[in-house]
């Protein structure tokens, strides 16, 4: 009971910090919105190629790319979340929390849940905007909730990596820089913006090993095809695997820092 309470209290603290600096949310959303509004227009003619060669008959490029843009945002936001733990480390806040009897795992969980929450809020805004611009939403409200769930797990898993890097390097700049370097290559070599069948063959191979691909495929299925449970479960499986590794590493490094 006290574990849940402590996690909640620390979660709320992170959320308050988020709400009170809304400019950060704006910065985070700026890039995906540019993609949604400009990029999909720029590549609008790509839609016919999708119909003819990739089996996405009658699907606009906007509808196709929405899933990719949502996950791009989730990925890059989650990869920045380590900066907040660096802030808490360097400001002494973490130390102040650690001298209280609070459960150590609650500190980590509160942080991760708030990161996941942030990514879901951002995704909701992007999805709403995409819908207004005319993107498909094949599975309605239930599908959207499922998308949120996928994104929350996806965010949780990648936040773990970011937190681990933050705890290891104690440098916001490193976390920030690494996130920036990793995001686009991994994104381009996934199905986020282009289906596998239209990629050069070496990239198809990379894409098939790219975890982003699986999350994108699930969200894409839910936005333009329907409840494709196979794809959705596959996504949860892949994300779950990443989460086990990243959260394990985070827990290990956190233990090292706090003991």
């Amino acid at each position, binding site marked *: 009971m006290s574990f849940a309470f402590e996690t909640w209290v620390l979660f709320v603290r992170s959320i308050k910090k988020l709400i009170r600096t809304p400019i950060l949310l704006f910065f985070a959303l700026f890039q995906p919105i540019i993609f949604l509004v400009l990029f999909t227009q720029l590549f609008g003619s790509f839609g016919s190629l999708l119909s003819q060669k990739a089996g996405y008959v009658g699907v606009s490029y906007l509808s196709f790319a929405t899933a990719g843009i949502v996950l791009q945002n989730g990925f890059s936001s989650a990869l920045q979340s380590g900066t907040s733990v660096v802030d808490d480390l360097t400001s002494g806040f973490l130390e102040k929390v650690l*001298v*209280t009897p609070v459960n150590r795992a609650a500190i980590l969980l509160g942080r991760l849940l708030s990161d996941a929450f942030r990514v879901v809020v951002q995704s909701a805004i992007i999805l709403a905007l995409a819908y207004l611009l005319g993107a498909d939403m094949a599975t309605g409200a239930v599908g959207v909730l499922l998308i949120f769930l996928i994104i929350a797990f996806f965010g949780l898993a990648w936040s773990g990596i970011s937190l681990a890097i933050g705890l290891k390097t104690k440098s916001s700049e490193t976390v920030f820089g690494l996130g920036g370097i990793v995001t686009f290559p991994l994104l381009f070599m996934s199905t986020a913006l282009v289906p596998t069948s239209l990629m050069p063959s070496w990239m198809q191979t990379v894409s098939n090993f790219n975890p982003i691909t699986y999350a994108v495929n699930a969200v894409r299925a839910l936005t333009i095809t329907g409840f494709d449970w196979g794809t959705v479960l596959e996504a949860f499986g892949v994300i779950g695997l990443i989460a086990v590794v990243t959260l394990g590493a985070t827990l290990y490094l956190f233990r090292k820092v706090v003991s």
Partner: protein
Amino acid sequence: MEDVISVDKLQVIYSDGTKAVDGINFDVKEGEFFGFLGPNGAGKSTTIKVLTTLLRKTAGNATVFGHDISSHAKDIRPLIGVQSQDTVVDGDLSGRENMVLQGNLHGMRGKELDARVDELLKLVELTDVADRRAAYYSGGMKKRLDLASSLVHKPKLLFLDEPTTGLDPQSRAGVWKYMRRLNKEEGITIFLTTQYLEEADRLCDRLAIIDHGQIVASGTPSELKDEIGADAITLAAEGNSGGALTVKQVLQGIPGIGEIVEGEGGITIYAKNASTMVPDIVRAFDSSGLRLVSINLSRPSLDDVFLKHTGHRIRAEELVKPPSRMIGRFGRRR
């Protein structure tokens, strides 16, 4: 009286080989205002980190309220309050929210917590600004908020790591007032570290002087000063080109001169009847060919105690410390 803190041959060695704390022994009794006086890097903060369960000791033993710091850290945490050297408040939260969060982390909630927070806000005179974001507070206000938030759970023992470093004199006097009130009126045992002689002298019932990880002297402030047993004469002199005698030699030739300690900024002599010796000193210099630049007479201070035991003076950093965003607080322990 029962020992609140008991430390036996405590040693902390960092992985780079630095002996931050090198075999110290001391104890703090219930209700005492106990101080660690020493310059930067003497081992004060390291000792606090070990006693507050944040850092592992290398060797030796220590207990807080009878609980071993290594094996029973969980029993210690609910009983202690800590104010670290850097002021730690969350600027995005209001003063009240900072305090409520701290209470929550100690398992407090509801009306009991609200009442306690109100009481403490009043104590540190922040009631009027309690609902403003702490980022807008002045340095002194943040320090008071930090102090108050370390008291929410009614700790029986409070660790204060250089609580007034970087504060202006007025804010410092304010913090002193609260610290004294907490100790005398609320009966909280206080462990204070400081590099300010005046602070240690005024507040502490008992203190230990620490330098290079070792305790060089301990006792009540007046015990320590009486130990000097003499007044201090500090003087500075300039050599003459042809002068064959050093300043020290001149002084040694004067009858009745006690210990002579050379330090930065001059030479300090300890003598029983210092005031009657000044004319002798002046005369001795006149005939020596050395020029006496200044001469100063003072009752022994803790600085003299420090000088006597370590051979150098405490140089307190009067300047405001670098911003707390600097990295490396945790890094040191590896």
